[in-house]
């Protein structure tokens, strides 16, 4: 097991370096002049350019720049923007908000998706099954921002006034439930379909028949035997999904005016704050890679037949 984890961690390194380098190169190498438009209407002061170029290592070749940047990241220094604002500080204020929303989305999609999937998988082609199939199909086709706008308009004070849809600058869990639902709605549909097909497939397997023949109660057959084996593909999906939820939060945050990572990175790109963009993307890539590692390790817990050597 230990050796397996080590090997997987080693495999992550080239992927991490590749992805972050790709983003770094896109942000820093392609635009000709990083100082264009940085000092209002007039060209920048040569002294300022010299100082910032020194600070951002802009005079070095791209690879050297990238590794110097990475070296700073390792010791926790995200660098500063062109105005001298610390990127690390900015990230640390908005990161918890997006993470909170991402986790709420993950919980909502896991709970609703798995319940819907199990119920429909056990009773194939009933009314409920068709209802879930149609509604998941609909959720998959609906762009996330449309779901967001529509829910915000019709649940909020201007619509049916069912709840307060505005989100404060330091949101609580309650305020983030609706945005979280919107963020997770698409994946919820995938989770429901994945669970359903997995349950349908495993329901006919020998171990389920044996468990029923042994006289096990229905709840135990479903809860222990069937579910545990059927959840493996679902767990894979959920694990890698957290990373994409955080990356995709940018749209939901835009709809609900939330001060999260998404808004930060969007402004960062618009204002050409390369340090901000590379910092956040690096963080997101890291989350994605670690989650996929975690998922691999969870397999062994769920299915003891899988052994890592």
């Amino acid at each position: 097991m230990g050796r397996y984890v080590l090997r997987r961690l080693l495999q992550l390194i080239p992927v991490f370096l590749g992805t972050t380098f790709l983003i770094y190169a896109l942000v820093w190498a392609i635009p000709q002049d990083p100082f264009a438009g940085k000092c209002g209407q007039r060209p920048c002061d040569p002294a300022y350019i010299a100082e910032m170029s020194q600070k951002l290592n802009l005079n070095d070749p791209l690879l050297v720049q990238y590794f110097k940047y990475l070296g700073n990241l390792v010791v926790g220094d995200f660098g500063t923007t062109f105005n001298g604002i610390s990127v690390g500080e900015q990230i640390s204020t908005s990161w918890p908000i997006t993470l909170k929303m991402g986790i709420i989305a993950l919980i909502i999609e896991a709970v609703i998706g798995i319940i819907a999937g199990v119920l429909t998988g056990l009773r194939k082609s009933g009314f409920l099954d068709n209802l879930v199939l149609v509604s998941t199909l609909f959720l998959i086709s609906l762009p996330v921002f449309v779901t967001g706008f529509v829910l915000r308009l019709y649940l909020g004070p201007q619509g049916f006034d069912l709840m307060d849809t505005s989100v404060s600058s330091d949101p609580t869990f309650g305020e983030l439930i609706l945005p979280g639902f919107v963020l997770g709605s698409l994946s919820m549909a995938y989770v429901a379909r994945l669970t359903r097909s997995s349950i349908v497939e495993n329901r006919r397997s020998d171990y389920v028949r044996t468990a029923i023949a042994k006289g096990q109660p229905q709840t135990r057959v479903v809860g222990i035997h069937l579910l545990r084996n059927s959840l493996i593909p679902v767990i894979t999906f959920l694990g890698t999904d957290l990373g994409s939820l955080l990356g995709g939060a940018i749209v939901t945050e835009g709809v609900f005016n939330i001060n999260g990572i998404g808004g930060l990175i969007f402004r960062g790109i618009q204002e050409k704050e390369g340090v901000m963009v590379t910092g956040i993307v690096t963080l997101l890539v890291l989350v994605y890679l670690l989650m996929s590692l975690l998922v691999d390790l969870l397999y062994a817990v769920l299915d003891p037949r899988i052994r890592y050597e």
Partner: protein
Amino acid sequence: MSDPGSVSGGAGLEASAAAGVDQASHVDDSSQKQRKPRSLWSDAWGELRRKPTFIISLVIIAVIVLMAIWPTLFTSVDPRAADLDKSLQAPSGDAWFGYDLQGYDVYARAMHGARASLLVGIFATVLTVLIGSIIGIIAGYAKTWLDSVLSRFADIFAGIPFVLGAIVILTTLNAPTENPGVARIITQVVLSIAVLSWPVAMRIMRSATLVAKQQDYVKAARGLGASPLRIVFRHLLPNTVAPVLVYATIALGAFIGAEATLAFLGIGLRPPVVSWGVMISESRDYFQSAPHMLLFPAGFVTITVLAFVMLGDAVRDALDPKSR
């Protein structure tokens, strides 16, 4: 994670197409069940013809394609004729979908917008599937080191969140102040979708190839001295194309949704191009007062995506003998 299927991300497409991967291994026993041996495709066709969802989605797609080729068939109003007097007017008998901020007829624009949206979807799908399949079949067929190099290479692109990647690529290529031409912006949107999505197609193709490679007929062909090219084109491709085709159908819908999302963020297609995404992005600030500006183009996007996803689902079920 590089999948626009979701825009909130999504191994989703991969997951939904993954079911198609293991079909390849069952290809051969499907014909045994029949009294008269039939090929997988004619078998699937027989199954599909009787499916209402398949017929419905084909009809919707046919209408949308017709709309894209010949929009004047559906409306005689010029989509670029602005009348500021009518700004933000609600739907009425004159204009079924109302007017937008500039006084454009939303119905006319929705009809004319189908072309750009569909073009982006088709080109992005073709490019994604081509890149993904070529690299996937090489990785699946090749010796181990090339396989792991190519797989890691795909991981690199898969690690970039789709929306973020697309924003970075599109804003790096166009400064916000620039106004790039129509062809250029469509090419850029297509390229950035393809660059971020090909790993999904590659993984599907690779695992289908890995399964097909173990079949006896491939070993026999190799034993008879067939060249790798012949094995790939004559023996592997016909048996690996099914899951990729299913993915392509679903992805086509997803990419049309992705075009809308990118436009919503203000970085995708932009005026003077008329597309559903552009209409949606123009509506975002006036949504509270004139919801019809958002709801109609969004409805078209949803219905189109729905049709392609439904088609993909139906084809996958028909190709998968286990579901019968």
